[in-house]
């Protein structure tokens, strides 16, 4: 019976749902997460504006870890394989997801990409999201950590303007710090802005070009890989194989 307007029409039925609108994506993300755990993969969702230096950070990371542990990447962009090409040139398997006009990756796109042979056996899997400080923050991909690249050229107030993205960040990489001498941006102000949107402040200043600060990032990654522990068997029988 209609309780909304009080008209008492018996054909009108209110139904309580109380369900996350993205529950389908959440389930897919949980599936991806279980998968990463079962195969001992550390999955990192790397987000940031277009041009914030995500690919450059990954190129440097790929080179630094060459021969130490297996790194692979999924690179999301609206068009082209350019980022995946750059990452392959840096020595790691990379698969491009071209989204057409979609502004973010979702858990299903990542899941489909996981079926590509080139990504098997990775210990450290980077998902380089579509360059965008808004939409990618809304979709869980099954990652262990969200890392956000924020270049010094973007200005110190970006965290306050895009609080949703930075609230979701487990770590912020302030990139392109080699450009600081040419800019008016103040790092202390930037960190102050981050502390207003990010409850557990974690910020590394890096320059992929000069290498400055990159050791700290590599050490953080190594620490997270070490903390992974042995692969956990998948909870439920699995209708498909990823290996």
């Amino acid at each position, binding site marked *: 019976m209609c309780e909304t307007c009080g008209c008492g029409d018996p054909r009108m*039925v209110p139904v309580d749902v109380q369900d996350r609108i993205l529950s389908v994506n959440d389930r897919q993300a949980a599936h991806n997460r279980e998968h990463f755990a079962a195969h001992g993969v550390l999955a990192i969702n790397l987000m940031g504006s277009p041009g914030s230096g995500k690919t450059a950070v990954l190129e440097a990371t790929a080179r630094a870890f060459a021969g130490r542990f297996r790194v692979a990447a999924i690179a999301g962009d609206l068009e082209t394989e350019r980022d995946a090409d750059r990452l392959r040139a840096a020595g790691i398997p990379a698969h491009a997801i071209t989204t057409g006009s979609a502004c973010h990756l979702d858990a299903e796109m990542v899941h489909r990409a996981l079926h590509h042979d080139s990504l098997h056996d990775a210990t450290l899997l980077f998902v380089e999201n579509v360059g965008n400080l*808004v939409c990618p923050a809304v979709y869980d991909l099954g990652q262990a950590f969200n890392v956000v690249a924020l270049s010094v050229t973007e200005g110190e107030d970006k965290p306050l303007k895009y609080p949703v993205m930075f609230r979701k960040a487990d770590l912020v990489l302030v990139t392109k710090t080699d450009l600081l001498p040419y800019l008016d941006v103040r790092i202390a102000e930037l960190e102050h802005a981050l502390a207003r949107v990010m409850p557990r402040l974690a910020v590394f200043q890096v320059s992929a070009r000069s290498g400055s600060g990159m050791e700290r990032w590599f050490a953080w990654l190594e620490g997270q890989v070490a903390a992974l522990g042995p692969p956990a068997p998948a909870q439920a029988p699995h209708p498909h194989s990823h290996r």
Partner: protein
Amino acid sequence: MHEYSLMLALMERVEEEAASRHAVAVHRVRVRIGELSGVEPSLLESAFSIVRERTICEKAVIEITRVPAQWECSRCQTSLKAGDLLQCAACGAPARLVRGDEILLEQLELEVP
């Protein structure tokens, strides 16, 4: 602009619910959107007006409740004010978001035969 893909997910959920109850029409869709959810209610409304055409929601209205962000200390539960550092002034522990990140389908009003 991800509100359109969010709306497609919402419509799928609504149609599923309506079908399971043999509804002939959906009259109202109530959703809750948190201030820090990354979803813009006005864009969600325009996506709804496009997506509902020729569906069971054709005549439905969407009601969006916007939920303000509310932070408190994760240790001593002291409330934080908007714009504060997200670290408790009293005990130094990181803040915890109590509400304000929800993207929720709350309620439907269905017409059943």
